[in-house]
């Protein structure tokens, strides 16, 4: 009987871990999914924005001595601006170029940013010093038997859910959101309606990057490890989450992130921790091969 209790508390604890991780993936995946939805580009550099978010928050807290929550909000704003700049510098000139060109640019941008961070911050793993760490985060928020959840997990999850709801409202209830959906369906007609297509795309980048930067700041705090290559793996996994949920759909990103996070943690917990990253890749490949439209996405037909 005790064994059964252990088993189930192990399972529950892993579930908690998985959901937290999934929340992170979902936040990053939103950026991919929104940009892909609007301009059909896999923005490889998105993972790097996540990394920059982590570094910015870290630098603001440790070097400039700004309190974490202020730094958190500043980071989100700076990352949003950064996304817009990225779009303006790298992608806008290629709007009419073949998709391959934009994709290669995205990869190039990703490498460039990653190495830029490497130059600025060095490749050492950075951690928040304990005294600058908001103390409340480490205290357990709830603990039932062996299962525990810290405040930072609660904070992260609630922020994720909150922003997903806000995002959903923005996309479905506001004018700019309607414009975003319009641009994703038909750019020429949108322009004919007087929608500034480039401005809407820039806005999309801003929101996606804000989410990515936010995820970065949160993750930097949660795992307390910030390094220049963190965006690469996380970015790919988040992309897998976006594909899993159905690329182009925000609730899909949420669902995909959650499923992938849980699958990864359960895979590491029950199957093999060596192949932990492999699980995400395998899920991603399987989804792309068998169901490219994802769990809640729609099939995108090609025009002849």
């Amino acid at each position: 009987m005790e064994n059964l209790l252990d088993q189930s508390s192990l399972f529950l604890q892993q579930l908690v871990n998985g959901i937290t991780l999934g929340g992170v993936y979902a936040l990053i995946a939103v950026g991919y999914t929104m940009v892909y939805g609007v301009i059909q580009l896999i923005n490889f550099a998105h993972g790097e924005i996540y990394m920059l978010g982590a570094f910015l928050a870290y630098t603001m807290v440790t070097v400039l001595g700004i309190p974490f929550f202020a730094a958190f909000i500043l980071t989100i704003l700076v990352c949003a601006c950064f996304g817009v700049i990225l779009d303006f510098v790298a992608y806008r000139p290629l709007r009419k170029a073949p998709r391959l060109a934009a994709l290669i640019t995205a990869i190039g941008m990703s490498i460039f940013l990653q190495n830029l961070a490497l130059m600025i911050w060095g490749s050492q793993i950075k951690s928040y010093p304990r005294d600058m760490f908001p103390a409340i985060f480490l205290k357990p928020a709830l603990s039932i038997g062996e299962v525990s959840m810290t405040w930072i997990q609660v904070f992260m999850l609630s922020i994720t859910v909150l922003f997903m709801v806000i995002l959903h409202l923005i996309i479905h209830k506001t004018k700019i959101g309607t414009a975003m959906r319009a641009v994703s369906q038909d750019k020429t007609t949108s322009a004919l309606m007087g929608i500034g297509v480039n401005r809407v795309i820039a806005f999309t980048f801003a929101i996606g990057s804000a989410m990515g930067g936010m995820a970065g700041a949160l993750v930097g705090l949660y795992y307390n490890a910030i390094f220049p290559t963190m965006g690469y793996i996380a970015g790919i996994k988040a992309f897998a989450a976006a594909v899993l949920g159905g690329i182009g759909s925000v609730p899909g990103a949420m669902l995909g992130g959650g499923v992938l996070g849980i699958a990864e943690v359960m895979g590491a917990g029950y199957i093999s921790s060596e192949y932990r990253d492999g699980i995400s890749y395998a899920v991603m490949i399987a989804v792309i091969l068998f169901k490219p439209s994802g769990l809640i996405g729609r099939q995108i037909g090609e025009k002849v």
Partner: protein
Amino acid sequence: MDTILKVMRLSKSFGGLTALREITLEAKQGQIVGIIGPNGAGKTTLFNCLTSLYYPTGGQIEFQERPIVQEVSETKKRLIKRCAMLFFVLGLIWVPLFWSVFVPHTFFKVEVVLLGIFILSIRLLLVRGLVRFQIWAWGLMFVFLISDLWFASWWLTHLLSLGPMIGTGIPLYYFTVPWGIIAGPFSIYLMLQLFLRKVRQLYGFRLGPDAICRLGMARTFQNIRLFFNLSVLDNVRIGFHVQMRSGVLGILLKTRSQRDEEGLTTKEALKYLRFVGLDGRAFDLAGALAYGEQRRLEIARALASNPQLLLLDEPAAGMNAQESSELIRLIFKIREKGITVLIIEHDMKVMMNLADNIYVLDYGMLIADGTPDEIKTNPKVIKAYLGGGTAHAET
């Protein structure tokens, strides 16, 4: 004259919009057949269906008496859907049975329950894919059917050696016997069903555009689709693709037959270019040609695959009077070679001089067919073209 192409009750719809509605037409050997109709009438969609770029929603196509597209009846589709559901229901029994026998004493372990849910959800996904006629579901289904078949026979042969079902005490053979008796034959039946040609066609095992070309149907496109960054000669040589035989090994070893084939192809390609009047520009990039020349190059490329039937999609669009009369001469020359030509044109002027037989489409329906003279005087056609009237048969 033999009928070379026969289209019967062909329909195509995109989502809710019907682009073609029960089109029936035929082309005889050596004829020039015109298809005319205003913009958006579905002419190009018809061509795309013929060359397998689109797959029709209903109807049949026969080319040189060989069925290219066959009709699958609704009953057959319904049968497949029912079979798929049954497959899932059998899975509902199968999964707990499997645990009981093969993973004894661990029935309530978290991992095992998860595994069970996983297997069941894969089976459900498979059913979904199957009823939506997706190709992967077709392939994966066989793996599952074979394993079901194997387990059915295994359980039937190990009837008495199985203990009671874990957690309930009910003798296992209460479950295994009916399961084995139903699942075994059912698996075989479903496999046979899935192998039927018509059913395979539903899952996308159909002739692709390349196979259609190989059969002898070549086409041009409404908005020119040349290989713009390749030379004119190479464009035509690609057209020869289906006539060439050399494989990777021959190419790597540069065997005599491969070299001969290359030489011959180049010569023939130049011949075709002369035929369409482009021999002077054979070594320029296709992108550098003028509009009219590009149109002719597209025709040369299509001719290079040695077709029986040539489909021309608005060849005269964007041409001035002189260019289009040259084009008409060229099409007559092609017909003299014994090639049947099917032309889309919305410009009746060109068509009247050219075609032996004309079909008129209007918003996806065939509204008239006959010789040019008949068409010219057909009131329905005039209405469709000059428009405005309400005297249409449908309304």
